[in-house]
């Protein structure tokens, strides 16, 4: 399942250790900082409101939901190293979030359940 490339040594079922060279990590951090900051900055630079095309707005509206969904699944299943505890934590998080429990408490309880679940 894991793709082998220049940076990856064979991974077992659990956590792998990365092998990115330092220069790559530097580029990564710099790149991440840039692509994160610029979108945050642009609205503060524009002096008048520039309306986005409706289709683009529509796309941007859906984007967060798609991204969050993709980020959660299937990654969460292998997050703790034990599928059963990952499932338990996942269900906990969904239930608490649905019950409008505060974010911090949701995360805390999900971690706790994932910790103690066999």
């Amino acid at each position, binding site marked *: *399942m894991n*793709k*082998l490339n220049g940076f990856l040594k064979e*991974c077992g079922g659990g*956590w*792998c*250790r*990365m*092998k*990115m060279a330092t220069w790559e*990590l530097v580029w*990564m*951090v*710099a790149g*991440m900082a840039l692509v*994160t900051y610029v*979108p*945050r900055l*642009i*609205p*503060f*630079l524009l002096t008048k*409101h520039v309306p986005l095309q409706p*289709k683009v*707005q*529509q796309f*941007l*509206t*859906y*984007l*967060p*939901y*798609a991204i*969050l*969904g*993709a*980020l*959660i*699944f299937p*990654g969460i299943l292998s*997050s*703790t*190293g034990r599928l059963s*505890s990952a499932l338990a*934590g*996942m269900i906990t*998080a*969904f239930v608490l*979030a*649905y019950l*409008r429990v*505060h*974010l911090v408490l949701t*995360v*805390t309880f*999900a*971690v*706790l*359940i*994932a910790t103690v679940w066999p």
Partner: protein
Amino acid sequence: MQKDILFSKRVLDGIQGGLPIAIGYIPIAIAFGFLAKSAGMPVLVTIALSVFVFAGASQFIAVSMAALGSSWGSIVLLVFMLNLRHLLMSMHIASRFVDHRRWIRALVAFGVTDETYAMLMMRSRDLSPPMVLSLQFTAYISWVAGTWVGYTLGDALPERLQSGLGIALYAMFIALLVPSIRGKRSALMVSLLAMLSNTLFSRWIPSGLAIILTAVLIPLLMTWLLPSEMTTSRENDQVENLEIDQP
């Protein structure tokens, strides 16, 4: 004298608003610091991520992807897409921010996160520089400090807890996603479709690419299928629904 009093009042207001965020950031930052170390990320890089990026979800993802062998380019691309939502949040804050000095606005822009956005939007009065910057700084300090603590002291945690922390990121995503989907069928559909397609894609391509592909294709598909389901207007844009339930 009046000006000083007003200034201090605003700073205090900001710190008050930032405290809940700071408290909330601590466990997540600790989890991040610890997970980064477990993945073999050097301490300076880890701290640099919290210092220069200041975006929790994407920092976690970067570490995960790096540990699975993704290239730095695909990581940056995914981080870009993941944090694009901050553009809309920034638009919202900027529309209510009173000061026009460039350097102040540049500072405020840096501190736009899901949590600071949600908290700032709850302020009924105009957003003044002392208040906003104090709020953001309080949250920021906690985030960076927590990262450092997690990195250096995370090993001291019991082994079971260390693996339990692995779910922190995903729990955070879930906690962000679920409240924002409430009552919006199209949003629910988008998320479910994305989960499905990502799971499918991941079987054949690296997970980082699968996420990017999903993040582009599914919204495109929905835009094509349901063009007028959800609209984004200044007052009604979806970022309001990405607010976390704050006390």
